[in-house]
């Protein structure tokens, strides 16, 4: 079978049509959307992409990370520092940023999996390392500590793709490409040998071991792939926002933000992280606008409403929105 043949093997025509419509809609969206909507869409793609990366660890291999901001931050800071200090562009910076994040992931994985730190304790370890990084970067002079690292900005007429200096639409298409690649890549992973082993580990680690699976090895691969993918989003983050503060980048609320999308969309599914990003970011923006229109300006009102909506979604659809939607649309979905 060809590569493409294998990827779409077993996918129903309806799903292919859905994917086609979604792809076309996202491709032409910037032509129609105004500046505001474009920034919202960028946010959505950003969370869809990272959600997909986080889902590899949690949804596929069953390892709960509550510290994914670590990999975003390491990617962002590495690429930004290389740019500020040495003028090294982001794409070359990736060659350093990704290995740095991968090493951090490998370090956490090694500690946890070698010394049998599982479940909740594993999740706490991921938080701890991320907090450690936050404090560390606060005091790291090379990245300007807590006063923040800034990338030089000016008004851009054109888009310099090589240096990632340009207008939001450029970032939109980069993130769209990354999200599409992540989607296809995750599908390929899930269908391969490693994907079967991951799911076996997620379902029952001891039974997986007695079926001959070297669980340490495959869990390590999951962490390293997830961390590497996430760090790419960090690089984009740095060059999109142009400023980095440890208190923001490594803050635990960042890690939580990352996992909400896939949880609301459907953990372990391929569409879940994308749908979840749309639902959550869309919800937040709608709330913003509604509250503004109503003239409600209470501090924290948005967070409270957001929390209530989230609670409702999770209570109504504990498996996530996608599995429910897929059933409603007659897309038989299992592990897709």
């Amino acid at each position, binding site marked *: *079978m060809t590569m493409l043949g294998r990827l779409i093997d077993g996918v129903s025509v309806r799903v292919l049509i859905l994917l086609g419509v979604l792809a076309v809609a996202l491709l032409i969206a910037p032509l129609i959307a105004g500046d505001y909507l474009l920034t919202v869409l960028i946010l959505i793609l950003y969370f869809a992409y990272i959600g997909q990366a986080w889902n590899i660890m949690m949804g596929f291999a069953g390892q709960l990370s509550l510290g994914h901001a670590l990999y975003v931050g390491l990617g962002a800071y590495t690429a930004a520092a290389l740019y500020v200090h040495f003028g090294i562009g982001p794409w070359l910076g990736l060659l350093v940023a990704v290995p740095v994040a991968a090493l951090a992931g490998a370090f956490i994985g090694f500690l946890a999996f070698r010394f049998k730190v599982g479940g909740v304790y594993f999740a706490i370890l991921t938080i701890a390392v991320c907090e450690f990084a936050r404090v560390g970067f606060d005091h790291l002079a090379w990245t300007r500590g807590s006063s923040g690292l800034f990338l030089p900005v000016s008004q851009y007429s054109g888009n310099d793709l090589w240096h990632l200096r340009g207008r939001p639409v450029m970032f939109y298409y980069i993130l769209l490409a990354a999200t599409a690649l992540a989607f296809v890549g995750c599908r390929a992973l899930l*269908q*391969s*040998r490693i994907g*079967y*082993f991951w*799911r*076996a580990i997620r*379902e*029952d680690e*001891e*039974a*997986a*071991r*007695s*079926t*001959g*699976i*070297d*669980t340490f090895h495959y869990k390590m691969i999951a962490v390293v792939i997830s961390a590497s993918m996430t760090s790419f989003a960090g690089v984009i983050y740095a060059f999109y926002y142009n400023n980095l503060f440890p208190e923001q980048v490594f803050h635990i609320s960042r890690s939580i933000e990352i996992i909400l999308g896939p949880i609301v969309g459907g953990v372990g599914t391929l569409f879940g992280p994308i749908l979840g990003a749309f639902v959550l970011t869309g919800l937040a923006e709608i709330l913003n606008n509604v509250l503004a229109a109503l003239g409600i300006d209470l501090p924290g009102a948005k967070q409270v409403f957001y929390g209530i909506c989230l609670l409702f979604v999770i209570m109504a659809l504990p498996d996530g929105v996608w599995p429910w939607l897929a059933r409603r649309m007659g897309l038989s979905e*299992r*592990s897709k």
Partner: protein
Amino acid sequence: MSTLLKVEGISKRFRGLLAVDRLSFEVPKGAIFAVIGPNGAGKTTLFNMIAGVYTPDGGTITFRGERIEGLTPDKVCRRGIGRTYQIVRPFPALSVEDNVIVGALLHRNGVVDARAHALDVLRRLDLYDKRAQLASSLTLPDRKRLEVARALATDPKLLLLDEVMAGLRPTETDRIVAILRELNRETGLTIVLIEHVMRAVMALAGQILVLNHGKPIAQGEPQAVVHDKAVIDSYLGAEALS
């Protein structure tokens, strides 16, 4: 016949309790070997030591001429020992087919090959028609068979079955007995089974080992073992003879 599995003087202690006490036995290649004994005799503990879940406190386990005691469960499986759990543990959210593909992928790189092998195994175990169902939706007897299928798909030389007939109706028991006998005859697979269902044990086993309090109280041909006084007293009771 050559020896496939050789257990020499293995013991396992859980805090105060000596679950397996200096146990030795040999299983010849191609044999069907049964381990019986009352609840808590140490049968599952014995399996867990062979399968690498526990490291014995003493003694050696030799499989195909190599020492395997203390190896991790995945390494033991790679060497050619498949096992099922007394309390079944299939991968619940995976389909029947995917459960078995996981096993088949141990010695196959391609998913296509693995699927073909998995489907063969499912046919053998009468689970082919249920291949698309989730493992969690199966009845207990089917789940037990699924575990056998998953273990078989790893191409073991030795299969350890922990009470796969428990809770089955007599017709279902007979069917499993037939399947196991066929496997043993056609593929030369060696089987060690823990079983309380004497009807199955008598129909299958060439050799029986009887454990009580972690120690062997009898071993030999089925007819001799079930007439052994110590076995009757401590485990079978007189009615088993009738």
